[in-house]
């Protein structure tokens, strides 16, 4: 009896730690069970295109989490910097330069870098002044920056910055940028560089992952802490199954090959960002991020410049978010000047949390899995609403409920766990169980 209880209490932390991803997987599966009219290739097409749009910006959240700043809702400001860059480049391109799509994209990326880096520096300074309350500060500074953004684009443009009133991006009265701006050449500029069939991409990506997993396992094998055999075998089997199925699908040309083609360059960019995030953690700077994230006090007493390290983390996050927003918008095709960025912070944070990340811990795979699960929920919820209540709109409400519910729940679980660990008890056995 006692043994069984011990077993349960050992498994409990695993369950509570991963409760959010489990709910989402269950929800998506439920969706498939309830609705028989969602074709798998439609689902995958939707899911994959949403993944290309969002993954980059979700990945930008990882570094601040590791550096101990928590969830950086301030990526909204990064997104605004990206939009600012797009508006400037588009304006100049239409007016004087008449660039091609790829060049416009290139200049957007180049221009967004200094803007986002500067703003990241300022927000980083702010977070250092609001130590311990970075998350709420990042949320509020996002709202504040929105006001500044509106001031620049709605008033300063045309009144302070001279612009041509007849420019298609400017409102007819000559003051302010229009509500919606067409991305023109920029639309699909990244997507159209190169495309590959979906299953082939899946095949290649899984093959690369498989070699990576095996190679990592073999090099780290001697260490008991890194070579969890069960998880390794599960990973290998899963990847092998995917490879086998891709080969089967390609050979038989079944339904699933009809999934939308993959924008290769976008995928490569996302891959590079994953690689960057992983590699930076293997440098001195990355180790400083981790030290500062684990304990500012100990890091400082060992001579690490805590404030500077935190600012660098915020700058990186903001710049990545700016680029992520540019990639997102070139996929969308139109820029909703005053609305496109407002939800990006909430949704990206929710996606990261859905992947199993917490306020203190986030990994690349959590970001990627989270993006997939979160968007699955987005696709399935109207279908479930339709199937259960005969009303797709109910599913729409459900989405909103899920987004904020998930953020609230993840934060709640985090604080609850923290309090549980900090609680002083007389029983040493109980204490040990909590430590593990």
């Amino acid at each position, binding site marked *: 009896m006692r043994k069984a209880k011990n077993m349960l209490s050992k498994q409990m932390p695993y369950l509570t730690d991963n409760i959010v991803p489990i709910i989402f997987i269950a929800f998506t599966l439920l969706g498939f069970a309830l609705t028989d009219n969602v074709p798998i290739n439609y689902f995958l097409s939707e899911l994959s295109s949403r993944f290309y749009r969002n993954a980059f910006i979700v990945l930008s959240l990882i570094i601040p989490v590791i550096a101990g700043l928590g969830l950086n809702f301030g990526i909204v400001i990064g997104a605004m910097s990206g939009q600012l860059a797009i508006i400037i480049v588009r304006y100049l391109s239409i007016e004087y330069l008449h660039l091609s799509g790829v060049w416009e994209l290139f200049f957007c990326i180049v221009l967004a870098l200094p803007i986002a880096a500067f703003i990241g520096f300022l927000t980083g300074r702010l977070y250092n002044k609001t130590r311990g309350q970075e998350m709420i500060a990042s949320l509020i500074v996002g709202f504040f920056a929105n006001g500044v953004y509106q001031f620049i684009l709605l008033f300063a443009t045309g009144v302070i910055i001279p612009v041509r009133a007849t420019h298609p991006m400017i409102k007819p009265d000559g003051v302010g940028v229009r509500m919606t701006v067409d991305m023109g050449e920029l639309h699909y500029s990244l997507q159209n560089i190169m495309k590959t069939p979906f299953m082939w991409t899946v095949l290649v990506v899984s093959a690369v992952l498989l070699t990576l997993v095996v190679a990592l396992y073999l090099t780290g094998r001697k260490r008991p802490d890194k070579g969890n055999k069960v998880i390794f075998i599960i990973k290998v089997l899963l990847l092998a199954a995917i490879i086998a199925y891709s080969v089967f699908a390609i050979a038989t040309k079944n339904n699933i090959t009809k999934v939308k083609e993959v924008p290769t360059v976008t995928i490569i960019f996302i891959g590079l960002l994953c690689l960057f995030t992983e590699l930076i953690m*293997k440098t001195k700077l990355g*180790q*400083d991020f981790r*030290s500062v994230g*684990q304990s500012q006090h*100990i890091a400082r*007493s*060992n001579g690490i410049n805590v404030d500077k390290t935190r600012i660098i983390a915020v700058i990186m996050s903001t710049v990545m978010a700016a680029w992520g927003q540019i990639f997102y918008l070139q996929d969308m095709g139109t820029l909703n000047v005053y609305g496109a960025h407002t939800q990006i912070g909430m949704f990206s944070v929710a996606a990261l949390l859905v992947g199993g990340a917490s306020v203190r811990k986030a990994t690349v795979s959590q970001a990627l899995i989270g993006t997939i699960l979160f968007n699955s929920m987005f696709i399935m919820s109207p279908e479930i609403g339709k199937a259960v209540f005969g009303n797709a709109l109910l599913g729409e409400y459900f989405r909103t409920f899920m987004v904020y519910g998930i953020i609230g729940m993840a934060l709640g679980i985090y604080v609850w766990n923290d309090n549980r660990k900090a609680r002083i008890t007389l029983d040493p056995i109980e204490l040990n169980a909590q*430590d593990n």
Partner: protein
Amino acid sequence: MGDILLTIKNVSKEFYGNQVLKDINMEIKKGEIHALIGENGAGKSTLMNILFGMPVIHETGGYQGSIELDGKEVMFNSPHEAMSHGIGMVHQEFMLIPGFTITENIKINRELTNPNMVSRIFGKQYESLDMKRMNSDARKALDIMGMSIEEYTLVAGLPVGHMQFIEIAREIDKTGIKLLVFDEPTAVLTESETQNLLAAIQKLAAQGIGIIFISHRLEEIMQVSHRVTILRDGEHVVTKDTKDTNVYEIAELMVGRKVSLDRSGSDSRRISDEIVLSIKNLEVKMPGEEVKGFDLDVRKGEIIGIGGLAGQGKLGVANGIMGIFPARGQVIYEGRPLELNNPRGAITAGISFLSEDRKGVGLLLDESIEINTVFTSMQIHKEFLHNLGFIRIMDSQKIRNHTNKMIKDLDIRCTSSLQHAGSLSGGNQQKVCMARALTQKPKLLLVSEPTRGIDIGAKKLILDLLKSLNEEQGMTIVMTSSELAELRSICDRIAIVCDGKVKGILSPEASNAEFGLMMSGVHADSQMGGAE
């Protein structure tokens, strides 16, 4: 043992006109284990802070005298400067990151890196970590300590003994370490871990590293040190070769304060044989002050003192009885068992508590003296309230009158009874705490560190007040204090706590050596027998 490594010459230090160190002279030789001992507040930490150039020293106006390292005068402005000169410190509180491996902790901010493509453009920060070399360095340091544990193990979940060793490994991994300071390294260790640590310290000394060993455990000092320096009240008492002295002598020199016993009026007191509070096998989980099986009987009408060194658990006793920290065991108060972990129950039963944490537990800093005085009585005893049947509101007239009487009785120096408690001086804050405790009309008063952070004049007032409460109202008082002299001046009996248990009960007239030995956890009888 070789040449002189470190010389401390005539070092003095004042904090706001309060002399905490007077003309300290010390010499540490290469390869020497030099024990530094003294009671709490004797000036050991201040001396170490000076040696390490802690900011607190410069912020309070520096120090007088000079420190020489290898014959050259040095003055460190920050701990890093001290470290770069080869001085290391093994902290009492662990400065380890639990989520890191042993290697990562040993190498924190001294990571070994290799240049790569990116770092050639963007700078050293982007160089990749060389985990292989870091691991092998960590391995070397661990081997010196004789630790077989794998260097890539996470620190979280390791026993405290291991953590202590990792701290030391970090220090010896630093190149050119010359002097290592151990600040009470054995306080948290078990017996066998302690022996391992002492062996490791001797090994380090054998390699020519000078060691300053701060400890309260005299037996350890006798075992490993070559010389011992004793500080008392900020003064250098003596430096002796360990082999020329004994535990008895050290203990006496450590406490050796002339106690003026001022026990007039004690004739009129009536201490009955009735036991008012009986504590059996009390365990309290108070961080840093754990109680591990405490037994004590308190007689009605007496003032009993609980003394002992910091961290031994004396503070945990009162906090455990009052339900402030989780507790277990049996407490019988006035013949009835007292429910533990229930602050309300303890107060209702007639026990009042003056907490050592005046600003955290004792006072509502942003409230007036009035509210602070009557707060507990309002909450628990439902006094000072107009009862309107369905609702109760404060009776401000009654509160004002009562508070003004208290202000007069206790001589609280304030502008009015509406002044905020936070703006009072330490002594007056303590008096407000006292006023609140008295408002509850307690039969038993628990007092913890009543004079901590209070100037000398106010100290005497507080102690006199306690004494008069006891004499005039027959109030039973349990007083916990780090200051032995203070306990000896007013208590009838003094229980000395060591390692969470009562080591023994002494009369205030007992000799210095008896107190000193008991506080250090030495069995008094055997050692004294040996010395005489």
